């Protein structure tokens, strides 16, 4: 534990020092954590300079685990995570930490089949493919969902992420919610014990592997699939409709998901008619009681701006913005931050 603390401190010191060297006059607010929202956060921070030139944000995308550790040891002013913090970690933090949801993303199922037919899949089938129970592409369960599609008799080769990631968390969360067997055998986490398949590093690794190897099936972020023109499957949601993953169907998922007061929620498989079922949120982590009142004030101003104006920038980077009802609730929560 000591070394991790030292590393965290060193990283924090580095962040702080690096900031001060460049900062000069503007105040510097440091954050660290999740890699998934890094592009949109960078965009926000760059845009926010125009709104308030007296403050600069420095965000290091070191991963959700690192983000949680650093905010818990107070080496950064805010943390960021792709998964909600556990009760255990929340209890260890020196103060009350708030989860502020920012944007959502979807995970899509991509595959490599001759002619790239548009596939339709349902949760139970996807779970059994990733469990290694369905092993051939022309299995009757896939065929019955896709009448008319020509499916080869080849082996299905599963490709999953080898690095710990929020994408895997969302995907395994979904599989756990649709399959009892998955929930009891594998479970949900940023990395799990995969029953079958090849591990590839990052979205680009999974996409590369699926593109090259005929008969593969894998999962990547929606943004990644869009930018790389990968084929992806329509999924049957909990109301029985087949939904194409789009930003709208993700925002729809957010709007209909049950979201608790502390915003630590999972939004997979929500009830909405038009909701795409594999979607997840990413959070900023901030203390309810800010130690530095000047920094706290600037941080709250930024969070308000992010909710009101920043959300509008999300879709240009393939992130789904929060629906209005959730955004209002988040704004109310931001008001409770004391500084």
């Amino acid at each position, binding site marked *: 534990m000591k*070394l*991790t603390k030292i590393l965290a401190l060193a990283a924090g010191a580095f962040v702080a020092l690096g900031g001060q060297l460049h900062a000069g006059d503007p105040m510097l607010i440091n954050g660290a954590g999740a890699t998934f929202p890094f592009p949109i956060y960078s965009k926000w921070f760059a845009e926010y300079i125009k709104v308030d030139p007296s403050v600069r944000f420095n965000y290091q995308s070191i991963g959700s685990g690192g983000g949680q550790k650093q905010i818990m040891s107070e080496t950064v002013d805010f943390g960021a995570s792709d998964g909600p913090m556990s009760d255990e970690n929340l209890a260890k933090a020196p103060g009350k930490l708030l989860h502020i949801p920012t944007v959502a993303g979807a995970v899509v199922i991509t595959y490599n089949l001759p002619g790239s037919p548009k596939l339709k899949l349902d949760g139970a089938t996807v779970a059994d493919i990733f469990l290694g129970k369905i092993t051939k592409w022309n299995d009757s369960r896939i065929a019955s969902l896709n009448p008319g599609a020509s499916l080869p008799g080849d082996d299905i080769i599963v490709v999953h992420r080898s690095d710990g990631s*929020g994408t895997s968390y969302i995907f395994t969360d979904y599989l756990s919610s649709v399959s009892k067997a998955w929930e009891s055998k594998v*479970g949900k986490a940023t990395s799990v014990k995969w029953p079958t398949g*090849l591990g590839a590093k990052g979205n680009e690794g999974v996409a590369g592997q699926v593109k090259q190897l005929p008969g593969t099936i894998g999962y990547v972020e929606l943004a990644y699939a869009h930018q790389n023109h990968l084929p992806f499957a329509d999924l049957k949601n909990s109301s029985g409709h087949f939904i194409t993953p789009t930003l709208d169907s993700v925002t729809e998922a957010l709007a209909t998901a049950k979201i608790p007061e502390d915003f630590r929620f999972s939004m997979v498989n929500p009830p909405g008619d038009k909701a795409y079922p594999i979607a997840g949120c990413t959070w900023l982590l901030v203390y309810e009681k800010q130690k530095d009142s000047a920094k706290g004030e600037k941080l709250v101003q930024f969070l308000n701006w992010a909710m009101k104006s920043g959300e509008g920038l999300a879709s240009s980077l393939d992130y789904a913005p929060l629906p209005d009802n959730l955004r209002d609730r988040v704004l109310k929560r931001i008001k409770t931050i004391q500084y």
Partner: protein
Amino acid sequence: MANALNPSATASQPPAAMTRRKLGDRAFEYLTLLMALAVFILIILIGYELAHGSTLSLKKFGWHFLVSSDWDPVSEEFGALPFIFGTLVSSAIALIIAVPLSIASAVFLTELAPRWMRQPLTIFIELLAAVPSVILGLWGIFVMVPWLRTHLFPWLKSSLGFLPLFKGPIYGVSMLAGGIILAIMIIPIITSVSREIIRSVPGLQREAAYALGATRWEVTRIAVLSYAKKGLFGAVILGLGRALGETMAVTMVIGNRPEIAASLFAPGYTLASVVANEFTEATTDIYLHALFELGLVLLGVTVLVNALAQLLLKTLGGPEIKSQH
């Protein structure tokens, strides 16, 4: 080196100069000792911190950690065996491919190549050492693995498929692909060190062999390689050290599946890769400690392999010959 510090070597010096020289020698000796100790202390400290960082996991799993094949972050059961296996096997494949190639090219560069060719070729080999491993990894995914999958592996399977080593489905990413990329990474190191060692074989050795009527091959074999074998072995160990700890390029082509399979076409996983892959998103204490313990195991494996190599070196015999640089 031991001879240079031996007082008998300076015995013929006049007394005044001798004490002055001795003082300088002393200071130099202590200075170098300090440097050498710093490396030693660094390794001890790394070992200590790794052990300290993995206390929870050490306590919970004990020796079982080394023999268990379970790696399940959800139920928090951790074992390192498939990763140890993957690390050793991928490095072994790398050595099997890289050692003959490297030593042959070192021999060519020093003994056989025309003079105008030596310098450019050497520069190219050293350039290969400067390619960052992530670049090699990307090249591995997009160029090497597809080629292996469509050309080399099917050929191996059809000609050597009766061996369990070359059975089973071909995915491209595999233990063998990991070994091949490692071989590419360690060839420059082994080649350049071997080249220096072969260059430092005294010319008299060669001339004596020629005088006895030996052919070029015989001169190379008897006068050069046999004379330099200890040094060459050292070069191989340097390469092995890099292979054991290499991370990025390997993880991109090895398939990242914690499994012990007889077939080299099956995916594998290495100690260094799993730490690099999972460390950033590990949030629970026991998980982090288990990852730290993998680091400790890797350090242990490296030390053990090196110790074994030293033992093997002792049995080799032959004169001790080192690079002049």
